[in-house]
């Protein structure tokens, strides 16, 4: 990979982003739960469902409730509790810095000004009820596909500059995609990526096909002795190396299953099986983290040798808190899923590790050049593209392509259904 002149702008932008927000790696997601809890008490920020994280947090809270009632003693239910509790290693002042919506008056749209407190509460309850009914049927960490416009109008009422911008962003892509909401925890970026991988992959990437990835944890362990500090979201009786081997094996298995799927229904069934907030799902997510670590180690060693590395590597290791793989792991990667999510530069690392290009629509950057960004941005033509959505570079949801292709699988043009039952005239000349 050569560093090209073109990407220096990107790196400037990215490095700015990295510098200001590196502290927030720790626990922004955890914080959001607390903010919402506080905000609900305030009068200005009404309890109405004004923004997307509300529903993802509703999902989070709901799944917490579900976990409590259905599996009280299993490790994963305790994990849900862990996720919503105040973040570990958290520095207090970042709490306020990262409360994006603290000062934002949301629902001061005309509708809410004249609505009764009771009415608003009822709407919220009804919404939670329908969601928990849906959840009761099948607890899933990725919701069913829904229309972007409807979602956006429901979540972003009001006329603040921000609301208008976000709604505009949704509108711009509404005809191209549908939305699938991802559980609102610190795993969301990994989860969204994994979901897209399993629901879309047509073939195994080269690194998965050509190597036995189960050997990798041992190799890494003998190289760099820090796997023993790996944090799992579930209890394990095995050694950490052994457990990571198992995680990687699972990932390979599921990925192979997904490329062998013959129909959309099959794929959907596979995803339903995997994404049900179960140990297996977390194993797969931890496998992704391991792959990121391994890639970081290799890239860092290449950097030290003076070989060419992708642009984002320099940024990854330019942060004071992650000058080398060891500190990257200890200060950042290890906490992903627990008290922190993925920074933009770490999204590049993820895409690079999997050899997939993540195309992310960033709604708060609507009307700028950074509305759609690619992690990484130098393999758009040769790696499969996974589409994700974020309103704020913190929480990620999944975008599903609308079938806007005009041709069926035989290359025949697909005619849209006539609105009045009469087929349109075609004349042969």
């Amino acid at each position, binding site marked *: 990979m050569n560093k090209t002149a073109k990407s220096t702008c990107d790196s400037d932008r990215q490095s700015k982003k990295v510098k200001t927000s590196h502290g927030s790696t720790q626990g922004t997601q955890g914080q959001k739960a607390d903010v919402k809890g506080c905000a609900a008490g305030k009068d200005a920020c009404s309890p109405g469902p004004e923004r997307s994280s509300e529903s993802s947090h509703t999902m989070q809270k709901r799944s917490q409730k579900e976990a409590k009632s259905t599996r009280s003693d299993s490790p994963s239910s305790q994990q849900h509790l862990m996720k919503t509790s105040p973040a570990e290693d958290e520095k207090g002042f970042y709490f306020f810095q990262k409360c994006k919506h603290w000062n934002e008056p949301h629902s001061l749209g005309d509708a809410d000004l004249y609505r009764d407190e009771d009415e608003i509460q009822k709407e919220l309850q009804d919404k939670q009820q329908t969601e928990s009914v849906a959840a009761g049927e099948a607890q899933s960490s990725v919701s069913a596909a829904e229309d972007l416009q409807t979602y956006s109008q429901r979540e972003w009422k009001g006329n603040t500059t921000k609301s208008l911008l976000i709604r505009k962003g949704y509108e*711009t*892509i509404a005809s*191209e995609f549908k939305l699938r909401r991802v559980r609102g925890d610190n795993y969301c970026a990994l989860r969204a990526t994994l979901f897209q991988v399993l629901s879309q992959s*047509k073939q195994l990437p080269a690194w998965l096909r050509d190597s036995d990835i189960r050997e990798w944890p041992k190799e890494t362990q003998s190289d760099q002795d820090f796997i023993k500090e790996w944090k799992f979201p579930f209890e394990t009786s095995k050694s950490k190396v052994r457990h990571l081997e198992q995680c990687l094996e699972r990932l390979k298995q599921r990925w192979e299953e997904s490329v062998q799927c013959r129909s959309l229904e099959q794929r959907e069934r596979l995803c339903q099986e995997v994404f049900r907030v179960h140990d297996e799902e977390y194993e797969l997510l931890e496998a992704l983290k391991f792959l990121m670590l391994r890639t970081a180690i290799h890239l860092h060693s290449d950097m030290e040798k003076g070989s060419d590395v992708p642009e984002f590597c320099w940024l990854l290791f330019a942060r004071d808190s992650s000058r080398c793989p060891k500190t990257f792991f200890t200060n950042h990667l290890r906490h992903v899923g627990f008290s922190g999510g993925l920074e933009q530069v770490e999204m590049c690392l993820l895409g690079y590790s999997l050899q997939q290009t993540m*195309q992310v629509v960033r709604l708060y950057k*609507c*009307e700028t050049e950074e*509305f*759609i960004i690619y992690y990484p941005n130098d393999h758009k033509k040769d790696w499969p593209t996974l589409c994700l959505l974020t309103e704020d570079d913190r929480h990620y949801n999944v975008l599903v*392509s609308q079938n*806007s*292709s*005009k*041709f*069926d*699988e035989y*290359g025949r*043009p*697909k*005619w*849209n*259904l*006539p*609105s*009045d039952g*009469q*087929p*349109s*005239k*075609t*004349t*042969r*000349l």
Partner: protein
Amino acid sequence: MSFIPGHPVTAVVQRIEIHKLRDGDNLILGFSIGGGIDQDPGQNPFSEDKTDKGIYVTRVSKGGPAEVAGLRMGDKIMQVNGWDMTMVTHDQARKKLTKKNEDVVRLLVTRKSLETVVRQSMMQH
């Protein structure tokens, strides 16, 4: 993504000269048309704008005069021999194309950028 906000959509304009093929009493052009101001524009799979009531090429016969001349399925016919085709009924369009005393028709067509077409046909896989 088929578009990025703020970036114009590219279109290619082509002049197509079709030499009709005589088949007994008939003059064959070798393509089919759809659309017209009297038709339902929502059914057209080729148009970007679903209110577009223009005349579109819906099929091109393999090896026929139209294909040879460079006409492609999905092309929108703007003019035929100088006559406007953007605001005509289906029948009016047909008539302009099938004049018995004309062996050659010169069309002005627009076509979405080649790249988009290729990308779209790859997308379904």
